[in-house]
């Protein structure tokens, strides 16, 4: 690397990008370039159609050599997009990559001032001037490499989390799979059949659950939540709260000296437990004891005590006998594990559709949600797969399906987005009714049937052929016949152009989905942003759909936005691949933005110590003086200490005070006054 000598006069190269017409459409590129040439320290200014292309980058490489440049400025798009690209070019030209500065004249200029070319051009000149001022003061920085822990964590063990964990584990990475519920499988385990193939959800899910349970590289942590997160890519310290389960596994029993003890899932405890409460897995449609498993096929087959409802009568303890699997005095336990990367797969909840009063959910007995329908039609569900009307147990013959129930809804009660899988599962529900109940007629009230996936449109065709009735109109309201408890579904058949009142035995609301309740708390722990609707924000909507802006944290499944099982599995595999890369590399480079103590200026006051959120700073004795010292590996470069130091003794690399002041001065004092 060509060495830039200290105190050498800065020689800056400025490159202005047209970005096709994206920038050149509203900014006078030539004017900006000519202006750049007049700025102090600028040795060369040039422009190009696409600076990010190979010829564009070559311009930088060549100019560094030819003009003996000490710093590069590219005026183009957002540094959040192409800063890494141009840093590589800067390095290839022989300069330290941190001698590069970007002027954002696209996202924050040409695109937002499309109809004000003159002002936009002036703003671009200012941006270049500001960037040149900073570039003139940039220094060589050496990124720090840190080793990456050979372990990963997946939060959430639905189909997305399970797939990601299996992929990571099969790639030889120790994987912690954390699930808040007592069992894995997520929403998919509540489904009966899956569209468009109609294979049974349990049949394809259970083998994966067993794989997860048996995989030697997966440490399954059910009934566990993330409590705290520290560290950074390669070195996350995640503290887990293992909720008091009250039931010991075989291993836990052995650890307590009860060899041969622990829960073997026999269920004797459940038989004697006197407490009866609704089973959340069956959406309250079946009873459950205080000591419980959701259903016989759960993985792991391990009982759990709900201490909110347990009356501590000890009957379970007595019947469990020598297995000594039950501990009614169990407390939450905490464990901290170290992982290199993390995948969030926290899934979704059903929107509380009772808030849409017009459809009468929870007010009318025979209005149910799609998920309730799944349980009622499922052979292992509370009715053994017999679809019945909640009001009287009769078999419904006419069933209305309300699509977009709360989706595509801008009222504030409801969700503005398309929930993406309701059309398809409602088609499947229609099929299941026709298949199971002779003479049954499903009525699907829809606005658009969005059957966009592979073999989906064909599935729509098939269900139409099977006899489902499609009514293009959103359901206005539902009224209950007070005597028969039948329901009158009011809508307009918009194709007929007439109001329609369909009397049905049962209504199924394809309720919108929303991020799982814990999503927000979890994302804050990992420093991940969310979009306005609460779904977790990917690093780039098209080119980086699995990553987040926090290095080392990735997304899988519906937590990033509604998607069906195939898409969830695909994203999970993508996230697993992305999360395994740093682990396989074994080390990652951290941006060298950390704080440096200027010891001759440091008065040792220690004001900065408490400001640091990462405990990266400490006071030490050096040559008889007390001065601050930075632990570089802990410092994340936020600059909170540097923004406060009364003596100006903290040098924030790449965002140093003289550099920022130079930018301020360049804007306000430089330029045409």
């Amino acid at each position: 690397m060509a060495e830039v000598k200290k105190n050498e006069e800065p020689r800056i190269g400025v490159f202005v990008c047209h970005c096709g017409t994206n920038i050149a459409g509203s900014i006078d590129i030539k004017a900006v370039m000519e202006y750049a040439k007049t700025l102090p320290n600028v040795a060369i200014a040039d422009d190009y159609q696409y600076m990010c292309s190979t010829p564009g980058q070559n311009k930088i490489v060549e100019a560094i050599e030819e003009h003996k440049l000490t710093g590069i400025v590219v005026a183009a798009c957002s540094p959040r997009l192409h800063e890494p690209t141009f840093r590589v070019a800067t390095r290839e030209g022989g300069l330290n990559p941190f001698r590069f500065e970007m002027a954002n004249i696209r996202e924050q200029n040409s695109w937002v001032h499309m109809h004000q070319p003159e002002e936009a051009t002036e703003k671009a000149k200012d941006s270049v001037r500001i960037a040149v001022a900073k570039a003139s003061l940039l220094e060589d920085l050496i990124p720090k490499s840190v080793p990456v822990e050979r372990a990963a964590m997946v939060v959430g063990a639905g189909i997305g989390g399970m797939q990601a964990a299996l992929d990571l584990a099969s790639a030889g990475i120790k994987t912690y799979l954390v699930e808040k519920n007592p069992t894995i499988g997520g929403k998919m385990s509540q489904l009966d059949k899956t569209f468009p193939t109609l294979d049974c959800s349990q049949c394809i899910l259970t083998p994966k659950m067993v794989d997860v349970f048996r995989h030697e590289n997966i440490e399954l942590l059910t009934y566990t939540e993330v409590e705290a997160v520290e560290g950074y890519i390669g070195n996350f310290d995640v503290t887990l709260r293992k909720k008091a389960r009250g039931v010991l596994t075989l291993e836990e029993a052995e650890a307590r000296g009860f060899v041969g003890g622990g829960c073997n899932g026999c269920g004797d405890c459940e038989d004697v437990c006197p407490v009866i409460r609704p089973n959340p897995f069956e959406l309250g449609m079946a009873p459950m004891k205080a000591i419980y498993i959701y259903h016989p096929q759960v993985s792991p087959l391990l009982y759990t005590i709900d201490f909110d409802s347990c009356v501590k009568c000890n009957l379970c303890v007595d019947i469990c006998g020598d297995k000594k699997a039950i501990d009614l005095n169990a407390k939450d336990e905490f464990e901290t594990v170290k992982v290199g990367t993390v995948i969030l797969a926290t899934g979704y909840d059903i929107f509380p559709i009772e808030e849409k009063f017009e459809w009468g959910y929870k007010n009318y007995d025979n209005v149910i949600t799609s998920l309730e329908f799944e349980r009622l039609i499922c052979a292992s569900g509370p009715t053994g797969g017999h679809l019945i009307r909640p009001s009287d147990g009769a078999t419904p013959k006419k069933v209305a399906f309300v699509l977009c129930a709360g989706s595509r809804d801008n009222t504030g009660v409801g969700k503005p987005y398309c929930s993406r899988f309701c059309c398809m599962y409602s088609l499947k529900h229609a099929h299941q009714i026709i298949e199971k109940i002779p003479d049954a007629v499903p009525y699907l009230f829809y606005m658009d049937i969005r059957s966009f996936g592979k073999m989906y449109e064909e599935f729509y065709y098939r269900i139409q052929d099977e006899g489902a009735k499609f009514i293009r109109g959103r359901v206005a309201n539902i009224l209950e016949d007070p005597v028969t408890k039948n329901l009158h579904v009011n809508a307009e058949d918009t194709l007929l152009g007439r109001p329609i009142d369909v009397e049905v035995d049962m209504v199924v609301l394809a309720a919108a989905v929303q991020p799982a309740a814990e999503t927000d708390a979890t994302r804050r722990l990992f420093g991940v942003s969310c979009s306005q609707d609460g779904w977790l924000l990917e690093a780039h909507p098209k080119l980086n759909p699995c990553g987040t802006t926090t290095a080392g944290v990735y997304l899988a499944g519906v937590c990033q936005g509604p998607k069906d099982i195939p898409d969830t599995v695909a994203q999970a595999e993508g996230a697993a691949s992305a999360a395994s890369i740093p682990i396989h590399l074994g080390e990652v480079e951290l941006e060298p933005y950390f704080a440096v103590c200027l010891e001759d200026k440091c008065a040792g006051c220690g004001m900065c110590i408490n400001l640091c959120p990462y405990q990266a700073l400490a006071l030490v004795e050096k040559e008889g003086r007390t001065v601050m010292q930075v632990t570089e590996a802990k410092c994340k470069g936020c600059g909170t200490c540097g923004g406060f130091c009364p003596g100006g003794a903290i040098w924030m690399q790449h965002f140093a005070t003289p550099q920022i002041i130079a930018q301020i001065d360049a804007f306000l004092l430089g330029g045409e006054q």
Partner: protein
Amino acid sequence: MRQYAFFLGCIAPNRYPGIEASAIKTSEKVGIELLPLKGASCCPAPGAFGSIDLNIWYAMAARNVVLAEQMGVDITLICNGCYKSIYEVNEKLKHNDELRDGVNEVLKEIDMEFKGSVDVWHLAELYYDPKIVGLKKIADSITRPLSGVKIAVHYGCHLMKPAKERHFGDSENPMWIEELVAALGAEPVQYRNKMLCCGAGGGVRGYDLTHAIDITNEKMINLQEAGADALTEVCPFCQLQYDRGQIEIEEKFGITWGLPVLHYNELLGLAQGMSPDELALDLHAVDVEPFLKKIL
């Protein structure tokens, strides 16, 4: 005593004076004093005026609000049509500078200015609000419980909708007026399609009477199914449509319903011991006698 400017509207004072009389007497017993709002006019009719020019509607309604602003008291009223005009225009002008400036330009010609200094309440909501009156005070005020009768409630559209511009919450299946009815000792009954419009609004009663009373008739079918002894509402215009509408239904469709229709104030008056004469119940088109027999 809390004081309110009493906005009368048209139909209550000019067709069903019993509503006006009962409002004054019943409210006094629960701690509300109704002050005359001198020189008030029609609200004006939201259907007629709003359809022709919303700006005139804003200005005329604002004039009525300004009368109360000059008195320095909040307005209360007993009609949903009036509620739409007075409440909604008051809120709109308070929150939309452009509308307010436009209205004030007109009001300047008659030396008035809309300031936005008062609020507007339906008397029924004051009755329901525990901070003002509340169910307990209503129940305590009655001397003749209306026990043994089933009473259905018609809320009326302009009171509840658009829900975003009101503060009553659920406009699909509200229950608060039923609670007010239960406080009188009567049994509130639920019926099919409770929130169906009376059919009169938007100028439709005058524009196409047959159409309007066909909607009314649908309501009557549902009410009979539920076995209601009477229908109550908080809107004289709805009352007119249900009361006189039954005569029109008889004339045009040959169907006789005979369902008494009483404003909630009239019911409250009866429960507080007012006599049918004090309420001018003989002015009702549908005979109220059979209902009175059940409660007196």
